[in-house]
């Protein structure tokens, strides 16, 4: 029996082994896991809103709770396991943002507390903050100028 495969044979073989389409598998998982995380967030939002009258404080507490849980599950190595299936479902919620910081902090601690843990924490979060804040400043300038001219 010949063990070497032609390109066509390999493609047919690997095609049979992997799901019909990555989209067919990835999309329902991203929807279910992402939706579940935001539904958990909604539970906390409802809980905090029933305890605190200030809407913004309740929303901020919800973010802080999810950020904490994302980091806790990163430290316990549970979030990366979920991320294998969740894809965008685990990346896009705020838990994915905090997971990126915590897992980098843990991973690069061996390179030192300052240049490792302290710096590498922002490998993904850094650009998010840089471009997010810069975009908001640009918006602020436009909004302010429109207010001055219009008002």
């Amino acid at each position, binding site marked *: 029996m010949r063990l070497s495969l032609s390109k066509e044979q390999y493609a047919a073989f690997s095609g049979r082994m992997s799901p019909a389409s990555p989209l067919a598998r990835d999309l329902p998982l991203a929807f279910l896991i992402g939706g579940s995380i935001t539904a958990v967030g909604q539970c906390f939002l*409802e809980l905090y809103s029933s305890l605190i009258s200030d809407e913004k404080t309740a929303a901020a507490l919800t973010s802080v709770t999810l950020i904490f849980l994302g980091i806790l599950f*990163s430290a316990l190595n549970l979030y990366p396991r979920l991320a294998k299936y969740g894809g965008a479902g685990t990346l896009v919620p705020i838990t994915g943002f905090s997971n990126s*910081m915590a897992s980098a902090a843990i991973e690069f601690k061996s390179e030192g507390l300052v240049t490792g843990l302290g710096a590498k924490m922002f490998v993904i979060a850094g*650009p998010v903050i840089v471009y997010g804040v810069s975009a908001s400043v640009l918006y602020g300038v436009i909004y302010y100028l429109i207010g001055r001219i219009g008002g």
Partner: protein
Amino acid sequence: MLASLLRAFLVGGGICLVVQIFIDLTALTPARILTALVVLGVFLGALGLYQPLVDFAGAGASVPLPGFGNLLAQGVKEEIDASGAIGILTGGMKAASAGLTAAIFFSFIAGLLGKSRN
């Protein structure tokens, strides 16, 4: 309560599903995806298009990363209204301060206590 949970689930899941399509079709890295989503959130927030989604779906819209961008935009707008031009620089970070500080501090603690997998 159940209706609001369902709305959060459907909208939050829907946002993740749309992003997953982009990931599968473009192979963009996570850093690029998250950066693009936050900037998109600022853009939609500035146009006043994202806040209605937050009002409808609650955490379903505020928990995904575009919600972070929307928070920055709303913060800037409100601070300019309240304090004038200085709000351009203070509004975004002020609105995001609890989340950012929590993310930095908890990640620092996790880095100190957590064990590397390698």
